[in-house]
């Protein structure tokens, strides 16, 4: 895999090859094989090697055909793609300015802003969901405040496709800001000052000097967010509409409520397919950074 190219693990101090090391790492490695690698392979086999009415099994893509031909499955896939795209764009629009501010500010407020931006990391998404309903739900805090000044109530995003979008953006702000901020560390003050000296405006500075240097971090942040959002479960399950639903709740319902593991696993393999490029890119970036 890409990981080996990086070869980032420092050479072990003991140069003698000692197979006892293999023994010590055996249990976690076997767990990875049994509970990550094997389920993925098995999921692919299981969904194309289907039982036949005669009792045997044969090669068939009928479960994938069912997914593609079923309007409800297609609607769920498109709402998932829509949510993921909107969240990725919103995350960049929200987090890039915060990260830029934190990188270039020397004000005392910066520490407070950074503290707040990271805080959602310490709020479990289940508490976030509850807070969302209490604030933006029917008769929530926003309604109370509007009502007290004589304005009409809002059209609540709770149980609409915007519910999961707001929740997922909130939840993903900390890591997006941290990843972007870490990337902005690569932009040297000298480069900025040099560009300013030749008269570059704020926008030119951002476009020609800063963005090219953080494009990789932006891709990492987006990949991480896409992997998390595409198959998100808790927030869409609680805040989203009952139909169409995102892939996470859809898979859960197909597996547990409809007792249809074959179709649930087909849906899982389809989410793998949509995310594989982001996943490989993300894993490669993590492996590259692993320089102990």
């Amino acid at each position: 895999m890409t990981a080996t190219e990086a070869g980032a693990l420092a050479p072990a101090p003991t140069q003698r090859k000692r197979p006892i090391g293999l023994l010590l790492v055996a249990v976690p490695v076997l767990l990875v094989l049994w509970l990550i690698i094997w389920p993925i392979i098995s999921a692919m086999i299981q969904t194309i090697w289907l039982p036949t009415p005669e009792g045997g099994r044969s090669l068939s893509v009928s479960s994938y055909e069912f997914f593609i031909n079923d309007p409800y499955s297609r609607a769920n896939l498109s709402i998932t793609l829509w949510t993921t795209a909107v969240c990725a764009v919103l995350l960049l629009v929200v987090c890039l300015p915060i990260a830029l501010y934190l990188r270039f500010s020397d004000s005392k407020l910066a520490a407070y802003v950074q503290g707040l931006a990271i805080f959602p990391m310490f709020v479990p998404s289940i508490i976030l969901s509850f807070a969302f309903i209490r604030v933006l739900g029917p008769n929530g805090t926003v309604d109370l405040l509007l009502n007290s000044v004589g304005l009409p109530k809002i059209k609540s995003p709770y149980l609409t496709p915007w519910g999961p979008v707001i929740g997922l953006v909130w939840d993903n702000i900390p890591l997006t800001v941290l990843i972007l901020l870490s990337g902005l560390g690569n932009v040297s003050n000298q480069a900025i000052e040099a560009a300013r000296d030749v008269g570059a405006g704020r926008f030119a500075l951002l476009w020609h000097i800063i963005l090219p240097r953080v494009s990789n971090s932006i891709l990492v942040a987006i990949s991480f967010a896409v992997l998390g959002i595409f198959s998100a479960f808790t927030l869409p399950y609680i805040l989203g509409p009952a139909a169409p639903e995102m892939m996470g709740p859809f898979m859960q319902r197909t597996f547990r409520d409809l007792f249809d593991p074959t179709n649930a696993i087909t849906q899982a393999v389809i989410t793998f397919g949509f995310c594989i490029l982001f996943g490989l890119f993300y894993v490669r970036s993590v492996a590259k950074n692993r320089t102990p």
Partner: protein
Amino acid sequence: MSTTIKVARPVDWTGIFFAVVLTLVIVVPLLVVGTWAFTNVWRFPSVIPQEFGLKFWYQTLARADVWSSITMSLTLATTVTLISAVICLPAAYAFARMDFPGRDILFFSFLAGHAFPKFGLLVAIAGIFLQLNLIGTFWGVVLIQLVGTLLFMIWIPVAAFQSVDRRMEEAARDVGASPFRVFWSITLPQAGPTIAAALLLSFVGTFYETEGAWLIGAPQVRTLPVLMISFINNQPVIQYGAVLSVLLWVPSFIALLFARRVVNSGSFAKGFGA
């Protein structure tokens, strides 16, 4: 920085803007939940609660399902963290200190799960558990949560073991200390704080793990977050959910106290591929 900048920018309007917006969006919703938890009566048109009090703390804590799910969550998180420590710490030591065939590829194999969307992977694992009759069992949930802790419980301790000063260990060996004594008295105290952080991370992460517990465990294994989902969906009394939220936040608060410095350091973001 220099005073010229201060003169050029007397008021940090951008900072004030971000501070105000983030306070409204991030702090206020949580304060609303906190207020609900200490409210006896709060009917619609009133902006502030009609009556504050602890009535619903007594009622929530008198519920059997709350206590059984607290016990379940703590038992699960402790079991998973202990098993994870027992199998991962020796492996981390081996990765840091020994050379063996396939060391690099095995080390990076723990990343495999992170290349896939998490819930899709959980469904694929659930497909395996279905054949093994592990759905709806305690050990099924332990296994699925254990997988989630492997990467952190190996990568963080490896870094800790590698940062231990080898010369001190060699000096101790030279004056006749046994390998175990060296490990106990030199290696562990130096690597200890980082390993403790990994343990805390794994405990808190497991405590809040909702998706695996819901997919594999429900309805037989009911953890605190799973109970919270049913409170949100089916419980008309708002305060039960609010009180449970405050209870549920305690481990996160502890993690916040210990981990804030780690999170703010650049190396943390690097661990996520930044």
